């Protein structure tokens, strides 16, 4: 392929003391593509994604955006490069309301430089309305909201600022079936707008439904990446459990 990938992470490492959470992992993502990232708990998926979002800067390896090597040392760097993240734990300030969380770090200000809370509330109502029409009590501290509403705030925050690259770490973990379906629709729509999406999920069904390629991690390492169309769910499970590519897996699996 001539065109450089939207994102490329090459030979990435991350250690926590003696734990090799991510070891020599290489992964890429193209514009308008969804790459599903799967693996057991503790495989290193979140850590790898936090390396991209700047939450846990990588120890070794390189990150390229459209072929250009960049440094991501903190979340500000990542946002600057159009990388938005929905964290597994949502990363909301529970004492602030939905508009304040949505615009945290990127507040709308008046001509005098003061916070324009009314404008932020107005914008927040618009985005949240789209994600969850029944979510109207947005002036509550987010700590008082339901799991689904909190998730909606985290998703709204990631999509509101024209992301080019979206990292979604278990975005449907706190959601019911109906809300999950809505997130699925949203992913398809964002994809059609040319946004590249890393979708971390433990739900193979979702991943097979939504992603173009699937990458599997195990024990901090990358098992491999395959086009979703070339992979059966059994083979994917084999990769997750055995850590072996489909062609290496025993035939009876």
């Amino acid at each position, binding site marked *: 392929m001539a065109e450089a990938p939207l994102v490329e992470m090459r030979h990435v490492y991350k250690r926590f003391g003696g734990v090799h959470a991510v070891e020599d992992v290489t992964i890429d993502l193209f514009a308008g593509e969804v790459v599903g990232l799967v693996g057991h708990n503790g495989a290193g998926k979140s850590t790898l994604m936090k390396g991209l*979002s700047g939450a846990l800067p990588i120890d070794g390896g390189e990150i390229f955006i459209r072929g250009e090597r960049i440094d991501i040392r903190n*979340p500000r760097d990542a946002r600057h490069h159009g990388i938005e993240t929905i964290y597994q734990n949502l990363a909301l*300030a*529970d*004492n602030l309301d939905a508009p304040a969380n949505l615009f*945290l770090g990127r507040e709308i200000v008046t001509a005098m430089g003061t*916070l324009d809370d009314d404008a932020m509330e107005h914008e927040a109502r618009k985005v949240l309305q789209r994600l969850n029409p029944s979510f109207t009590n947005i002036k509550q501290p987010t700590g008082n909201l339901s799991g689904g509403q909190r998730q909606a705030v985290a998703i709204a925050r990631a999509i509101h600022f024209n992301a080019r690259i979206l990292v979604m770490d278990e975005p449907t973990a706190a959601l019911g079936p109906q809300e999950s379906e809505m997130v699925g629709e949203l992913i398809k729509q964002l994809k059609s707008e040319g946004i590249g999406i890393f979708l971390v999920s433990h739900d193979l069904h979702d991943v097979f439904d939504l992603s173009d390629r699937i990458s599997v991690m195990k024990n901090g390492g990358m098992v491999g990446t395959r086009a979703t169309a070339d992979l059966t769910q059994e083979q994917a499970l084999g990769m997750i459990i055995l850590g072996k590519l489909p062609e290496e897996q025993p035939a009876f699996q």
Partner: protein
Amino acid sequence: MSEGARTSARPKALTDGAARLLAATEMDPRLLAMIGALAVIWIVLNVLTGGIFLSPRNLFNLAVQSSVVGVMATGMVFVIVARNIDLSVGSVLGFVGMIIAFLQVDVFPIDAAWNWPLTIVLGIMVGALAGTWQGYWIAYRGVPAFVVTLGGLLIFRGGAFLITDGRTIAPLNQTYQLLGGGIDGSIGALWSWILGAVAVVTVVVMSTRARAKRRKFGFPTKPLWAAVGLIVVSAVLIITFVVIMNSYNKPRTEIPRGIPVPVLILIAVVVGMTLLARMTKFGRYVFAMGGSPEAANLSGINVRRITLWIFILMGMLCGVAAIITTARLNAGTNSMGTLAELSVIAAAVIGGTALAGGRGTIPGAILGAVIIQSLDNGMVLMSVSSPMRQIVIGVVLILAVWSDVSLNKVRQ
């Protein structure tokens, strides 16, 4: 229904009428509870002192006494909301106060017109430097605020002593003394009325504009009667305050004192800090850090820099408190501000600031400061001994936090 949803988290124990009033006015129930507590304390103390407590003279003194702790408590709200603590504020006050007195009397010509303005600017700068020093260790060197400011408590108290080897410096510049609110340190009846009128007009204009803006966006607004009611109550409180300050005359004259300068300084600080907390990115980030340091960091907030600035601000407010204290004493003494950190932290906490971080208000802290000062002042009037007063205030601190904790449980 939207009105009900907005307030669903509020205590159910309240009677229906009170709950509706709360909902309509969108008042913070915690703040209302504190106002109620203060009213009860005032009435009881007034009865126990045979009407002396609520006399204009005593209320005037109470206002002046509350201003030093009040000024610092506004800064302590930011510190505690961001999950830190500052144990050094009393010592920084003493240190800055001694530097101001030393410069004013021993270094500069005492009667020069530029003396007092220059020394107050230098004093606030020294406070900012003290805050920078502590904020640096906390934010960039990862030493817990408890440890750094405990160190600061000793360092700055020692520093205050060393400036003159413990010698008291007095008297200070004549004009400077007015900042302490002594006999001539008030602005008189006319200016008090003018300021009161400006305050009332400001309240009316700001409420009307805020309401118009929410209307424009099509957001729900308070019912009109509630909005008007709040304005009327605020106006009555402002006017009552002016009347009381104007009812206390200068000694052996019929000349009303009016609002004392230290109280004006406190009002300016409260307005400034409230705007900072509610209308600026800085204030928003302080609260975000308190709610979740991780979320703040992941949102691209420079948590270290904000922490540093919180302590710089706290240091500057200690400088302001040092100005009021030295001007009032008309002297610099190296024991100034001793144990003030305890009153300041207590004021913030009684005023509803959560030690776990993320929650607190400037008006709450001022109420906390007034509650502490009222108890102290009232007990002095009743000739309660100093150890006894400490015991009572200590118990009140525990009761205040306990009631807050129980109120939170009821809500959940």
